[in-house]
């Protein structure tokens, strides 16, 4: 956890430092796909097409800092027999993970303005994760706030001339939410596809 925290601070600092100079605001709205890994994949293994995100970045030169709000819904439907001591249970299981994130973000941009620009970023903050299993007429659920970090890389592509201040952007982000309560750590890759405007 300490390593992740230090990495988050180290990568956020350039973005925060950029606030000292000329500012330009960047707003993004994206469709967010998700592929669960590790514990999350054990719970819900399907690739998710359901999610969205909102981002605000304050730009200065090659760096930015900002805030990111996100939601990813992962699910799996399965018919299986689960066994516990003395008990066996068979039924359709509908499993869901709804992960909501509020993350501070720092990014650094490569390339030159006006062309496609790759960027690297780190986000850190809180995840509110709801895990639910519906089986038969019963529901089991847990909800926890997790601290987490999310390194990402992506690129922006300016849209055609008539939309001079808009850009298409995409990013791949690895979300890692530390264990909280009785819930083990959760992780998933998110693929964001969105559009951004700069003011």
């Amino acid at each position: 956890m300490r390593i992740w925290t230090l990495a988050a601070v180290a990568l956020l600092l350039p973005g925060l430092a950029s606030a000292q100079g000329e500012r330009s605001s960047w707003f993004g709205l994206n469709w967010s796909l998700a592929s669960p890994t590790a514990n999350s994949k054990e719970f819900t293994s399907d690739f998710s097409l359901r999610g969205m995100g909102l981002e605000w970045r304050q730009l200065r030169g090659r760096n930015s800092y900002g805030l990111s709000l996100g939601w990813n819904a992962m699910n799996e439907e399965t018919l299986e027999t689960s066994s516990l001591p003395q008990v066996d249970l068979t039924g359709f299981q509908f499993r869901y993970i709804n992960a909501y994130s509020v993350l501070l973000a720092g990014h650094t941009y490569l390339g030159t303005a006006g062309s496609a620009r790759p960027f690297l970023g780190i986000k850190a903050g809180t995840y509110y994760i709801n895990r639910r299993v519906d089986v038969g007429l019963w529901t089991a659920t847990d909800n926890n706030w997790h601290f987490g970090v999310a390194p990402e890389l992506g690129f922006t592509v300016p849209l055609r001339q008539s939309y001079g201040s808009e850009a298409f952007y995409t990013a791949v982000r690895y979300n890692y939410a530390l264990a909280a309560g009785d819930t083990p750590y959760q992780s998933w890759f998110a693929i964001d596809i969105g559009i951004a405007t700069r003011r």
Partner: protein
Amino acid sequence: MLRNYVLWGALFGCSLGVAACYPGEIDSAAQTDLVITFHQEGADFQANQTFSMPDSIVDVSVAAGADSTLNHAHDAEILLRIQQELEDMGYTREVDTTVRADVVVLVSAITVENNVYYTYPWYPYWGWWGGWGPYSSPGVGSNYYYPWYPVYTTNFTSGSLFITMIDPDVPPPDTSQGAGIAIWGAVINGMLEGSDPEILARINNSLSQAFLQSPYLAIP
């Protein structure tokens, strides 16, 4: 500028559309079917060869003094299915109620909500059954001991079918807890939606599943 708003509006609309399309909800009554089986750890199922079974399904709600909408039209078919499943596993039904079988299989059902699984006394419900004669030793009391944790039913639109296999020869840990021990139990639960044939087919499937997931019941 106008095109900017159109673009943003379209993207926002698509995002909301994605968000609104929530995944994987239950879309048929059959998907609510649940089969739970319990067994006593260490029970010697192979020691039993014969079973007795009352020829009625007890309506737990009525037996407990409440109203019920339980449909008894298919009781005989359900009991026959249970008998067939047990016979397939090597058991023989003892129909002579004067003969003591190795285990007793009791079948009950309920359709009302917020009932607790088997926390009620069993004996009054099956007290009319002549098959108790062979077991009417001093041990017969008002209940049996269940070595697993009770299960709760919670939805008024649901129905539950309970099957309990009791071994009267095995005393419970505490004799005040009953006269014998339940060594196996099954709960079949689901929404009571659809036509009678559909519901019966689902019950039959669930009954098969109950025995399929209990291979330890089989005797050579």
